[in-house]
């Protein structure tokens, strides 16, 4: 985290202003004195550091690294096709902007897996 911040030439105060996370807390996270922050905070920090939020979520242990498990974009797209073609599984979302990203598709697949007890990924 410190490397990301310094790499962008940002001070703790600047990150505090842009992400709405206190600089004292940020400093503790950077020194591994606190547990990994809540995913919402990581999402905000990812925006400030201009990195995919999945990178921070993986680093914090919230999300598995898909590449390590050999889960490719193609595999996710295939599984998603399976989910949306299921006649009894209906879903909808309210999105900012348009279109479902890969992360959103994977999320929907995971919900489907839990609901149907079927492993797709």
């Amino acid at each position, binding site marked *: 985290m410190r490397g990301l911040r310094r790499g962008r030439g940002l001070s703790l105060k600047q990150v505090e202003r842009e992400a709405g996370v206190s600089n004292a807390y940020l400093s503790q996270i950077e020194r591994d004195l606190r547990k990994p922050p*809540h*995913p*919402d905070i990581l*999402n905000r920090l990812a*925006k400030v550091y201009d990195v995919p*939020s999945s990178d921070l979520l993986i680093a914090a242990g*919230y999300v598995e690294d898909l590449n390590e498990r050999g889960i490719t974009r193609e595999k996710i797209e295939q599984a998603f096709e399976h989910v949306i073609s299921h006649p*009894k*599984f*209906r*879903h*909808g*979302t*309210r*999105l*900012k*902007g348009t279109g479902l*990203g890969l*992360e*959103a598709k*994977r*999320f*929907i697949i995971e*919900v*489907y897996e839990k*609901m*149907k007890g079927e492993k797709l990924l």
Partner: protein
Amino acid sequence: MDALVTEKPIDSLEQFCASVISRHRENWPPPETTLAHEFIEAFSPRSLTNTERILGFAKSLGIEASLSCLPEGMHGFNCSNEERTMILLSTEEAIPGSREHTFFHELREILEYRFRDQGCPIATGAALEKRAEQFATYVRMTTHGQEITQLFSGAAEIEQAWKRWLAFAGILAFTVGAGLCCALLPYCEENLRRKQ
């Protein structure tokens, strides 16, 4: 309206959809505001100004609702299969009222599945998204309006004239603000997204 009053109490979304279909079969689909109005008549949702109210109302409809850390850009998510209907709402709420709006949006999509199941779909894709936004806005404005009416009734009982008028003025200002918040919420969210 008389028909609504004389009907049996509606205790599920399926029954509600069936009753909407029977009332509007000749002129299908009904305007979104009509559907939202009939939904309010049937289920009397209070304004869902906090999460507990949202989750409680969902439970009363047989929907499992919860807060969840949703992927970037997703305000809410709904899904259903034969046995379960779920609504997941983002733990993040950038604009006050966004979670309540999203809940009613997701609920409208769930109603759409019920209409489809009964052979009377109303909309799909972008048209459904648009209608769900209208539905959520209308339901929120109406339910908030009902609560504001109660505030006016309370203020009318204040004995001292100047205090009463002051209360009226305050409630009026609050009403205008609340109405604008409900109506403009989707635009505010979109602007915020663009800025981000």
